[in-house]
């Protein structure tokens, strides 16, 4: 069988320089890298649709129960949410920076930025922990389990609406708001945890010196994932905390 001249050339070119990171079914590192990246973008598209369902539920219930959402926002502390927003934005910066470090083979910078991203994610989860435990403590939870004693209501709420009782809120269906709140932030939190796992993994690989100028796809793709997790929070924050 006669193959064309061009084909011969590519075959011979690819053979001697075959780097160890190159999987057997790719011809070049660039092809491998761009394939991984395309797959990651598709995965992120999938992630967006995954969250879309919850955003739809949010929209439907908010449309039908304006007042419930209004009262509910008093339960959320915008300062804690704001703090978390800053923490996540910082981590996005360090994530992007880590990609740059990997591309430039700055080993120390790479390790630092990966570690910082991991720590920011951890800080986010700590704040989340305090928010959650307070709500669970006073009984600001989902469905018919919602039951907050009037004494535990947020002071700002009582100030604006004196005479409001926990029972009134319960009858208003506040449990549904918290069902949505916990599902959305919970699902997002799971993604943050996964992100922490990924950054730990990258850190170990970077320690072992796996990445170089031509092979840094993993750092790039995890950073993409991390930006999406961030972006979802950027929507969650105003929709949940800032709806006065």
């Amino acid at each position, binding site marked *: *069988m006669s193959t064309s001249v*061009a084909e011969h050339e590519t075959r011979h070119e690819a053979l001697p320089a075959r780097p160890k990171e190159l999987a057997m079914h790719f011809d070049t590192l660039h092809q491998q890298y761009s394939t*991984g990246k*395309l797959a990651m973008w598709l995965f992120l598209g999938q992630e967006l649709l*995954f969250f879309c369902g919850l955003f739809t539920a949010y929209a439907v219930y908010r449309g039908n129960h304006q007042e419930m959402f209004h009262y509910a926002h008093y339960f959320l502390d915008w300062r804690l949410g704001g703090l978390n927003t800053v923490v996540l934005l910082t981590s996005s910066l360090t994530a992007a920076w880590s990609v740059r470090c990997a591309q430039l083979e700055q080993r120390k910078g790479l390790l630092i930025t990966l570690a910082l991203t991991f720590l920011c994610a951890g800080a986010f989860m700590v704040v989340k922990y305090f928010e959650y435990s307070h709500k669970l403590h006073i009984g600001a939870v989902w469905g018919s389990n919602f039951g907050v004693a009037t004494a535990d209501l947020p002071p700002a709420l009582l100030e604006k609406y004196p005479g409001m009782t926990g029972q009134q809120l319960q009858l208003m*269906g506040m449990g549904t708001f918290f069902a949505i709140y916990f*599902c959305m932030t919970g699902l997002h939190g799971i993604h943050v945890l996964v992100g922490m796992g990924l950054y730990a993994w990258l850190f170990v690989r970077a320690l072992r010196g796996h990445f170089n100028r031509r092979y840094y796809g993993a750092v790039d793709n995890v950073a993409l994932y991390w930006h999406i997790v961030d972006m979802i929070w950027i929507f969650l924050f105003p929709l949940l905390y800032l709806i006065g």
Partner: protein
Amino acid sequence: MAGGIVEKPASGEVIHPKVHYLNASKGLKSWLVTLDHKRIAIMYLVAVSVALLLGGFWAVLLRTELLGPRDMILSNDWYNRAFTLHGAVMVFLFIIPGIPASLGNFILPMQLGAKDLALPRVNLMSWYLYVIGLVFFLAVLFLGGLDTGWTLYPPYSSGRDIQWNLILSYTAVFILGFSSILTGLNFIATMHKLRPKGMSMYHMPLFLWALYATSLIQVLATPVVGLTLGLSLVEHMFKIGIFLPQYGGDPVMYQHFFWFYSHPAVYIMVLPAMGVQSEMIATFSRKHVFGYKAIGWSSIAIAAIGFLVWGHHMFVSGQSPTAGIIFSLLTFFVAIPSAIKVFNWVATLYKGSIDFKSPMIYALSFIYLFGIGGLTGLFLASIATNVHLHDTYFIIAHFHMVMVGSVLTAFLGGVHYWWPKMTGRMYNETLGRIAAVMVFIGFNVTFMPQFVAGTRGMPRRYANYLDEFTIFHQISTIGAYILGAAVVLQAGYLLHSLFKGKKAPPNPWGAASLEWQATSPPDFHNFTEKPIVMGAYDFENWELVSEDAGYRLKREVVETGKSLSKVH
């Protein structure tokens, strides 16, 4: 250059490879950790066949129970479990992953002349996720079964006291969804990045266009059902009040979410089947497929419009009448690209030199059965008739026409079509034809009476019925037995061929897509030489050597490395 896989000795003697992907390494472990798409495809084929038999077992029980109007062999409770498990297993474990994950997995990289899918590890992972889903459903069976219907509507499902079978079912569908998403994104990445030089999108076989459209839906729709069932799981455990009315939730929202996936999912099922169909029709008419671009783009159109019609499952759910009218109109639109395909297949047959090999018999049944399935979809799409026909046997017959009549038929046809390539053996052609005709007859006998029973008011999901429906049910049950017998017959001769079948030549059918340039079964790396890239339907490049030796590339093609076709 001498040698290579395509050049056969002039005598027409066929070279059978001694070492190929099946025996390149040995032992169970070499299969369980394999990254080879061909082996993963075979493992998928085995797994989905298990699911098919499991689902079929329930179907036979259901039909036997319906032989008479009163209780026959199943209690009412077990009847409910039987139809739920039948539906859930068939939909989530057989028909959705069926063609793409088994045939697609094997054939897609080969039709591109590539060595593997873009992400081999992800591919293996999707198989393991699938198997976990399968095991969960088996566990459900032993935990007392599930009786909610495959649609798992609340409040009947998640609103109950916490029970393992529901927890496992939700988790299983969630995991299976993930498996399906991974397959889809892997396919898209492969088609974009591993296509060889010289093969544009318009040179790809139509099977790949169909898989592309399928993958788009898998990636974009499946997460929504994942979320829905994930929420249902949380709802079931904590009663959070998103879908359950007694806690302030909205069950109609569940239906919206569920069908937002599950309608596109019917195209996840049927599009790959249409792809297989296009290959078989063209190959056995020995004619360039008619309307290539129309068929290719209609796949994409179906995928796109398919996202906008989910409300046709909810005409009587209390959704707003305006929404109903819009959904009805859009549903009519989706029939257009479906019809485009049918017309093009028929036009391909016209003046073709038709060869009634077993896969072709399936392909011809497909045209007929899909025609009826699609047209009855239109009855259901118009609101006034829908109100009368909703939840009757008419619906059952409609979707079995498309899901079994079309998808199962194409799956079986595809398995026969690529069997020589996958296993390196020929099955018994006479038995193959008999089985194909039995499937066609059995299928019609089963479902035609159900249309009639449905229009006369026989509701779905009942174990007992009025005496006047007896005759329809009895005929239908006989048909189901014929269908069952055909499947048993197939299993028999296909397995037999693995051991005793004649060795298959590289290209027994004279098909022109690239996988036929590889040996049967293919090498571990798929091709021992780079295949000559040519149009997928350039049949004029191949000439018949003999019945046993199949077809070989013409000398000129081998020498110039160029297709003889003028179509492109």
